[in-house]
């Protein structure tokens, strides 16, 4: 169908505790063209200081009900305004945007690594893998156990391993220190989270010759390739993380 801009109706705004919430939206057109790793650009109404849209990954899709979800963390004015929306309110989106994760070959062993709200695009990715017949491992890192949500969802799509910085759940420390990485051999790692984490994962993958894709969270003005503000430095020059990304193979990035 191509990119489009539409007012969508909010079906539910589920507050998870801490600063996290999930918006469920009713697709107005068929949303079967969404691919894992893609994002939407959300218009923020009712906030005097937010002029630009905000990019948010597609977290989950329900093809039967034609709805999809966004998993959002409140970090500033825009996300705070979004957190106040109620079911029935409408939200203007530009979507679907960006490229998407490269799906693995039939027998490849995959690990999905997420940190904090960076787990968002991995659920959808995991589900698509499931529908292709594979059950990925998932390594999710959090600051502490209070910030872990939706684990049941992730457990349905893969084998979940946890780290927390304070050891309040799973293994203590950062994802790159988790024992699974020394125990198992993966063909592909998909990663989304804070930049330091993605860089650590990228260097682990390079050393161990594992194919690795990361999802960048660069600042965006447009989201569809016209402002050239969101660039990532790559071996092929500056590329837009909103059209050539947000998913990049780490070998392409100048990290």
């Amino acid at each position, binding site marked *: 169908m191509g990119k489009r801009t539409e007012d969508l109706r909010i079906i539910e705004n589920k507050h998870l505790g801490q600063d996290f919430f999930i918006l469920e939206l009713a697709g107005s057109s068929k949303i079967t063209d969404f691919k894992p790793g893609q994002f939407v650009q959300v218009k923020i109404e009712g906030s005097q200081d937010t*002029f*630009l849209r905000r990019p948010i990954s597609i977290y989950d899709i329900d093809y039967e009900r034609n709805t999809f979800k966004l998993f959002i963390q409140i970090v500033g004015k825009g996300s705070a305004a979004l957190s106040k929306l109620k079911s029935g309110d409408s939200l203007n989106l530009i979507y679907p945007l960006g490229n998407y994760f490269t799906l693995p070959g039939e027998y490849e062993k995959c690990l999905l690594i997420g940190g904090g709200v960076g787990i968002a695009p991995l659920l959808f990715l995991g589900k698509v893998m499931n529908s292709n017949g594979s059950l990925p491992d998932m390594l999710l890192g959090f600051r502490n156990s209070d910030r872990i949500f939706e684990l049941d969802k992730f457990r349905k799509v893969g084998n979940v391993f946890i780290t927390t910085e304070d050891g309040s759940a799973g293994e203590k420390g950062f994802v790159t220190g988790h024992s699974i990485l020394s125990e198992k051999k993966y063909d592909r790692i998909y990663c989304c989270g804070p930049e330091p984490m993605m860089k650590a994962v990228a260097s682990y993958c390079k050393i161990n010759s594992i194919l690795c894709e990361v999802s960048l969270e660069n*600042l965006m*003005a*447009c989201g569809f390739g*016209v*402002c*050239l*503000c969101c660039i990532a430095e790559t071996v092929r020059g500056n590329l837009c993380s909103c059209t050539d990304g947000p998913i990049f193979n780490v070998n392409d990035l100048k990290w």
Partner: protein
Amino acid sequence: MVKLGISIGDLSFKNPVMTASGTFGNGIEFDDFFDVSRLGGIFLKGTTLEAREGNPYPRMAETPSGMLNAVGLQNKGIDYFEQIIYPHVSQYDTNVIVNINGSYIDDYILLAERINKLDRIPAAELNISCPNVKMGGMAFGTNPVTAREVIREVRKVYHKKLIVKLSPNVTNITEFALIAEEEGADSVSLVNTLLAMAIDAGKMKPSLSTLTGGLSGPAIKPIALRMVWQVANAVRIPVIGMGGIMTATDAIEFLLAGATAIQVGTASFIDPMAPVKIVEGIESYLSEKGISDIGEIIGYINRKTS
């Protein structure tokens, strides 16, 4: 039916709504959203002779009712333009205009010569007002001597419609508009972005890699409108107004102030349909007011008060 057409010399435009360079890519990115041929014209991303990578990330900062950018003319150069972009944009049934840039006067001349040969490009916008490049750009456009020189040299080699894009970062913008007119420009467009800065208090450092960048969006609209009004009252060539136009109402304000046409810039980032909605909005405004020709509102406030 309302008459929306306007013209710059003998070049006619089906309506006064165009898109601002650097905010509309090469049009192609908007094909999914609407039929680009419905616009009066499109101004493509700033082009240089050679390919350029632009400035390092971060290049963008959100500000109250606006944004800063420090893209720095990232583009793939004129060869790529001729081979890849030109064939595509040639298919649009609208005026496709190239925004030309350089570090030295010779760059501008060589580029203008190349663009001059492209049949389907009826006009060029001479950008002497980019605030985000170390050499050229705004340095040309804020100094009357160099501004005159670059316009004069380009005019010698460029035989189609020449539009000079003015910088708002000057004490007296009419001075530069008059220079453009004297040197034979067919039109002036204004404003480019205002040189500005953002600082992240939490991180205690500037938000942009380049420290300063260009401010665009509704925040600058009152300044842009004032400058368009001043320039429209000073020159006889048509003026293309821009700066913070988000809606048809904003566009009409520029027309009332004396702009013959307008460009939609940053608005397209927030609503990719903005340019075409503005065409429709201007049409309804005129119908509601019982005005049959857009020409009647162009410069209306100047006719009334003078």
